[in-house]
């Protein structure tokens, strides 16, 4: 049974007081299996973030269903096994990283010792030990991203869902995240992330889905399906041309 | 059974319970709400202030305004007009509506309205609110009783109020006796003096104390003159024509000065009066002391 299932999912956004509708996703069907690293790529506005937010029950599908580990996404308990990193994380201004992670752990029913141990380890791994007591509003963009990762990992979830995890990071930061994802795969975790840095997807992912204008146009096994001469980039631009260019 | 369902049922149950508890709630509120006001139509600004939770400190604010204004006038010995007194009365009326338990407006009102403005009925109109609200306070009915006796010549009613006062905690032990005296209309000036000395003793405000001192001085002098007139009557069998006669016959050394700036004289009925009518010049008297 796939760990993450999106079945025939559509999402239509309707602006208040207006007839205009935005079809963010059309009949998306997608499965991710346990232990794999799944990449999600597409141009800006393709619907990647929308799909991820549907998985996190931040928004509800207009049609279709989403289940995670056999449970419907609207079940709040299922998020016990998910670690989420949004595209731009925002935290309460006056908390410290330590307090943030403590909250993250407590909300997942972890006991204090476990939280303490994992906090120290994670902050060390993500180079945040110096700033442990400082309030989050004093953090730089890169530090915020890393704090967000720590929050996603504190409860040792089976599934990681990252929305553009490399955005805004400098080369050192990107290398860290890259290695982190590899480490997670070694631990047997399932990682689902979206990105438009094709190079990363090519190197990290087992499988990848290309989303254009809200529709899944290609699902490929990165190792097998890519012919020797073509890169993922070539495949991607092929798909874009096929759909006749991007919508406004 | 989704949690949403539970929540909807809970909301329904809570709303029903909320509707049902109102009779109990409103009954409890009625009991606690202040002494019901007489339903005076108040100016709209006052109702607005009353309506927020800050009505108690509005009372304080108005009170300070009133006492500062009148304190100033007394100090500079400048005349207060009839309009001023009406203004004071209306203010104190509002203040005691906002907070009928508040002690100060009753004291201020009595001191100025009864004693200086010559408006004892208005003073009493305020004080009776205090009698009703401040059930533990014996001075409220005491003031009403005194004013009725002294200014309004209503001895019976005055005595009745003194009896009410005597039943409240801490009341002056002599009240029942005084009430009895009022019913028999004896020794008016002595009674008045006894009252005045009680007022003077318990008054903390120095300005108002001075007012009482002046009055006590005047009454003591009147009392001494009354006693002199009695001695003259005993001696000669008739009333003296004027006060000079008392000096001439050696009953008193000299005619005492009226602290209010007037001149004492013997009235046709034999009682001692003063040309000042026991008020400083330039102040309206309204209804002065009656016989």
């Amino acid at each position, binding site marked *: 049974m796939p760990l993450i299932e999106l079945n025939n999912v559509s999402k239509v*956004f309707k602006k208040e007081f207006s007839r205009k509708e935005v079809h963010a996703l059309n009949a998306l069907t997608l499965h991710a299996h346990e232990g794999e690293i799944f990449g999600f790529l597409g141009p800006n506005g393709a619907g990647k973030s*929308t799909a991820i*937010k549907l998985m*996190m*029950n*931040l928004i*509800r599908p207009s049609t279709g269903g989403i289940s995670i580990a056999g449970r419907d996404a609207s079940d*709040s308990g299922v998020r016990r096994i998910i670690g989420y990193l*949004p595209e*731009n994380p*925002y*935290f*309460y201004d*006056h*908390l410290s990283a330590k*307090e943030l992670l403590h*909250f993250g752990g*407590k*909300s997942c*029913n972890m006991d204090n010792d476990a939280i303490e141990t994992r906090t120290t380890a994670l902050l060390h791994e993500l180079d945040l030990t110096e700033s442990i007591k400082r309030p989050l509003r004093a953090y730089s963009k890169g530090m915020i991203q890393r704090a967000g990762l720590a*929050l996603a990992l504190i409860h040792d979830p089976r599934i990681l869902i990252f929305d553009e995890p490399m955005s805004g990071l400098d080369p050192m930061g990107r290398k860290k995240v890259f290695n982190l994802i590899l480490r997670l795969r070694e631990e047997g975790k399932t990682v689902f992330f979206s990105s438009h840095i094709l190079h990363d997807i090519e190197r990290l992912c087992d499988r990848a889905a290309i989303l254009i204008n809200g529709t899944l146009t290609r699902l490929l096994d990165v190792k097998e399906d890519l012919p020797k001469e073509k890169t993922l980039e070539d495949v991607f631009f092929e798909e874009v041309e096929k759909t006749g260019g991007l919508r406004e | 059974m989704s*949690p*949403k369902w539970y*929540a909807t049922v*809970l*909301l329904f149950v*809570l*709303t029903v*319970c*909320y509707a049902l*508890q109102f009779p*109990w*709630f409103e009954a*409890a*509120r009625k*009991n*606690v709400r*202040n002494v019901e006001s007489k339903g005076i*139509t108040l100016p709209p600004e006052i*109702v607005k202030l009353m*309506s*927020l*939770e800050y009505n*108690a*400190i509005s*009372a*304080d604010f108005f009170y*300070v305004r009133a*006492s500062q204004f009148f304190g100033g006038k007394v100090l500079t010995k400048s005349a207060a007009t009839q309009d001023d007194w009406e203004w004071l009365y209306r203010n104190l009326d509002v203040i005691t509506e906002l*907070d009928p*338990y*508040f*002690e*100060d407006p009753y004291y*201020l009102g009595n001191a100025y309205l009864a004693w200086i403005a010559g408006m004892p009925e208005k003073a009493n109109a305020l004080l009776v609110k205090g009698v009703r609200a401040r059930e*533990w306070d014996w*001075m409220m009915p005491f003031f009403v009783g005194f004013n009725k006796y002294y200014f309004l010549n209503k001895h019976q009613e005055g005595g009745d109020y003194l009896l009410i006062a005597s039943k409240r905690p*801490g009341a002056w032990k002599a009240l029942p006796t005084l009430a009895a005296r009022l019913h028999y209309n004896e020794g008016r000036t002595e009674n008045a003096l006894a009252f005045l000395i009680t007022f003077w003793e318990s008054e*903390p*405000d120095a300005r108002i104390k001075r007012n009482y001192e002046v009055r006590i001085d005047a009454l003591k002098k009147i009392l001494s003159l009354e006693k002199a007139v009695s001695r003259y009557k005993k001696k000669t069998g008739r009333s003296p024509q004027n006060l000079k006669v008392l000096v001439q016959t050696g009953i008193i050394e000299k005619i005492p000065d009226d602290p209010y700036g007037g001149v004492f004289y013997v009235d046709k009925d034999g009682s001692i009066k003063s040309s000042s009518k026991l008020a400083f010049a330039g102040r309206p008297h309204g209804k002065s002391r009656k016989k």
Partner: protein
Amino acid sequence: MSGIISLAHITLKEGIRNRALFGIFILALLMFAATIALVNLFMRDIVKVAVDLSLSTISFAGLLMVVFIGTSLLAKDIDKRTIYMVISRPVSRTQYVIGKYLGLCFLVVVAVLLLGIVSSLPVYISSIMYKNPQAVFSWKIYFIAIVFIALKLMLIASVIVFFSSITSTSFISLVLTIAAYLIGSTNETVKGILDSKMEGVEITPPMAFIIKGVYYVFPNLSAFDLKLQAAHGLALAEGYLLSVPLYWLLYTGIMITAGSLIMERREFP
């Protein structure tokens, strides 16, 4: 459950560390100091004046805190997208609402406790400044009055929770809450005028209906105002001490439950 408690915990922390709170406390301290000075303007009933000013200060400072910091903790959570860090945890929307409200309540209790203790000072000083035999004051009723202020503030907090679940802008939530406060402070008086049928006051049937409606729909905040009772030591019937908290419980319950239901359906794109 631990999700609710830990959320309440960080909400409390975030509230306490808000700079505005510091300013509000300074304001309250100044008002207490002013109380000690102002009582000198009065003759006899100075304990009453000190009690008036002290309780009004607690109420006013508490109101500022609940309204400004409350909307910051709730509606701004959605405005500034900080809500994501909470609802991406295994915390349901209902647990979110309850946790936030609980945090706001903790904030109120801590603030009122602190202000209440400090407020005793002007009252105590005024009671020894002038020994008025006619003054009837009771510390017990004074502290009950403070408890009722806390209840009132927590009720207003529940109204903020409700409004924050409907609107997207923290400013609208702020304005609606202030309106609800003003209406709640006056609706009992206005209904009283309706009920007492005062002379010269004419009320048409549609107006009477509106007045009654407003009285039942908006909270009756005057029920929580015990300043006169505290100032003059007036006894409170036991029934009152049960009836008003019950009213509080039911009204707050309705606000929180309705807020939860609305939040369950809300989307955060």
